[in-house]
């Protein structure tokens, strides 16, 4: 323990030496911090010495010098960490649900961010400096807000990557916006996140509307002709859970179906915490839909399909990658999962079909992920986690040249990378302030996946699809 402590201190002293030769670069904040701690240290030391020598009249000069020396050393040691933080690495905050009910996907997403960070650090970092993640665990919205606060005020980060789940993101982004800290949302898809006109919130992945539109379009154009139906005769049902994710996606689905003039025969809302959905399943069965569009999480999607099976109710289901596309889904149903579709994050991304640099990056990511996860193929969640961090490290930060929120923001808004040249099959172009969905990456795209022989295959969009639609029997 002592040894470790000693090492840490010497390391800080070294940092200090390097920095003092470069005094021009010393940050304003650092000076404030230094002075504050120095003054505090002197006062503390004085009080202590006063108490110690309370009976002996005035302090001798020797003692005073000794006090001053100790205080100085103490102050330098304290500021060491601040110096280290300010000048030699990029410190980026992450807020993810690493424990609690959302932990499953939160951890997968964080793994993606971590691997992206390792990759960029192994290449020598961003502009010659390594990236260090300051991670925070946010199991629920309250924690997301308080952790965002802690990262900003105590850890002094000026850029945060988050948050996996929409409800957490909605809470954390409010704090970041108030403190004027750059917030990069890499997975939460609720349209509301970028729909509030926030200045510092950017989303790298698609939003719920983009995904929902694609689901409805695919149902109308991709599936309807194959089951010999047209827009007039096709019967759609929309089912969604009632948190931010489900509500936003459900709204997108309803809007799009209305716009295309499709016939929605049932619309059901429920809580993802429900332990029984048989009433809803019966209602759907009575409505006789051809296709069910479902925005569900994993637990309730398993329950929904189980109870549909129990009540002998069959329909073509397009869910989302949050539910039906999750690997746990196929574990629960085995062969029965075949034919179920999931809109959202493109699975596998059909890495082989990507272009030059994107393919190289994605393959490297897959390789590292497999190495650290017993050969398991990355979950779609890990892919978007990786993509978000990669966009920050490779496109936004080099252009901004610093982690100053204002500069990051300007850099992000000025980027225009066409589709297929960014990361995965996405491009990068954020909606400008004042536009609808300010901060949304307009060149991100969702896909439609389908379980085929126990594997999640991408069937839409065509250009990166790894398989064709097969209709469930």
């Amino acid at each position, binding site marked *: 323990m002592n040894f470790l402590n000693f090492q840490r201190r010497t390391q800080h002293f070294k940092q200090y030496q390097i920095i003092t030769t470069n005094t021009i670069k010393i940050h304003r904040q650092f000076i404030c911090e230094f002075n504050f701690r120095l003054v505090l240290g002197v006062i503390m030391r004085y009080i202590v010495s006063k108490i110690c020598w309370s009976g002996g009249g005035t302090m001798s000069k020797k003692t005073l010098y000794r006090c001053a020396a100790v205080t100085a050393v103490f102050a330098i040691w304290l500021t060491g960490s601040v110096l280290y933080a300010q000048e030699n690495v990029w410190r980026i905050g992450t807020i993810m649900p690493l*424990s*609690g*009910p959302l*932990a*499953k996907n939160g*951890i997968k997403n964080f793994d993606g961010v971590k691997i992206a960070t390792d990759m960029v650090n192994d290449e020598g970092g961003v502009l010659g400096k390594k990236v260090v993640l300051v991670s925070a665990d946010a199991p629920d919205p309250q924690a997301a807000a308080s952790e965002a606060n802690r990262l900003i005020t105590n850890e002094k980060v000026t850029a945060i990557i988050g948050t996996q789940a929409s409800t957490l993101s909605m809470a954390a982004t409010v704090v970041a916006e108030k403190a004027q800290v750059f917030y990069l949302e890499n997975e939460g898809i609720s349209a509301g996140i970028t729909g509030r006109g926030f200045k510092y919130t950017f989303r790298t992945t698609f939003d719920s509307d983009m995904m929902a539109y694609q689901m409805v379009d695919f149902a109308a154009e991709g599936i309807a002709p194959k089951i010999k139906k047209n827009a007039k005769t096709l019967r759609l049902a929309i089912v969604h859970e*009632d948190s931010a994710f489900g509500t936003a996606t459900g709204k997108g689905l309803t809007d799009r179906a209305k716009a295309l003039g499709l016939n929605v025969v049932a619309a*059901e*809302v*429920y*809580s993802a*915490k*429900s*332990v*029984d*959905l*048989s*009433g*809803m399943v*019966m*209602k759907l069965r*009575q409505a006789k839909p051809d296709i069910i569009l479902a925005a569900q999480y*994993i*637990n309730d999607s*398993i*329950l929904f399909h*189980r109870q549909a*099976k*129990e*009540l*002998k109710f069959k329909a073509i289901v397009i869910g989302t990658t949050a539910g039906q596309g*999750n690997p*746990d889904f196929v*574990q*629960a*149903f*085995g062969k*029965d999962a075949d034919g179920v579709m999931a809109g959202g994050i493109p699975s596998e991304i059909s890495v082989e079909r990507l272009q030059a640099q994107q393919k190289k990056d994605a393959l490297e990511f897959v390789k590292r992920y497999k190495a650290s996860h017993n050969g398991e193929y990355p979950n779609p969640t890990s892919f978007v986690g990786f993509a978000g961090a990669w966009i920050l490290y490779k496109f936004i930060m080099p252009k901004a040249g610093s982690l100053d929120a204002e500069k990051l923001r300007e850099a992000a808004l000025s980027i225009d990378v066409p589709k297929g040249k960014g990361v995965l099959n996405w491009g990068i172009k954020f909606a400008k302030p004042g536009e609808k969905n300010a901060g949304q990456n307009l060149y991100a795209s969702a896909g439609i996946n389908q379980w085929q022989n126990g594997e999640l295959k991408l069937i839409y969009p065509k250009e990166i699809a790894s398989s064709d639609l097969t209709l469930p029997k």
Partner: protein
Amino acid sequence: MDHTLIVQLLISGILLGGIYALGSIGLTLIFGVMKVVNFAHGEFFMLGMYLTYWLFHYFQIDPYLSTLILVPAVFLIGLVTYYVFIRPTIGSSVLAQIFITVGLSTIIQNTVLLFWSADFRSISLSYATDAMVFGPFPALGVDEVMVNPSRLIAFSLAICLSAAFYLFLRFSYTGKIIRATSQDRSAALLMGINIDKIYKLTFAMGIVLTGLAGGLILPIYSVHPFVGFDLVLIMFVVVVLGGMGSVVGAVISGLIIGVVEVFSSYWLGQENKQVIYFLVFIAVLVLRPSGLFGLKEEEEVERIEAIE
């Protein structure tokens, strides 16, 4: 109204109620005898599910067969929990018991999360999840109705277990001792009853029933470290509605809640079903504050005074 639909909803509701009832018996037993509200109830439920899952996963033991291993294992867990956590709080304030069981719940959840991750694990057991089709019954105007085997097993077991417990508490010597202890702890002590032994037995039995219920519903629900959260609220409702401490009450109120839930979610929408069963809950509590089968208020007051 369509007869088939009503019959089907009724069957679904009763089977769901069976699951609620099965899960609540352990909770109500522990409360009835020991006056300990076990807030870690859902976690023991979860442990039962996990044990069954691992037995299936690693040794391919059928979940219904593995109850033979599950029961002694959970009994042991119950005993250890009693000695380490519950026993020191017996006779101390209710607050201490709440703190210890709530704390226990958090500890179990997060330990499980640490070791077994937050994955949603479920088993695929086709004979237990496929629908059994009955009918049609032209005489009643009822078309085919579906019954799920694993729910049917859970339901029948809830009925059998509650009947067995009722008889056990009513007629056996141990049952009589347990009832005597629950009626008046001090008097029982004076009569030479080994209270510690009774508490130990009751707590372990309560945990066994809870773990068993968890194991039996594994073919229907997937297990994750927070599965207890989803189920425990409704089980508390069931127990309070049935009268805290009454095993038969738990079964009957479980069935009531199940049927109300399914019907209201069909007619009023899935999102409104909680409103309806909580309305039923409040209505019953207004009319009978101690629940359907609970002791009358005066008796309860006397009892509490006696304890204090």
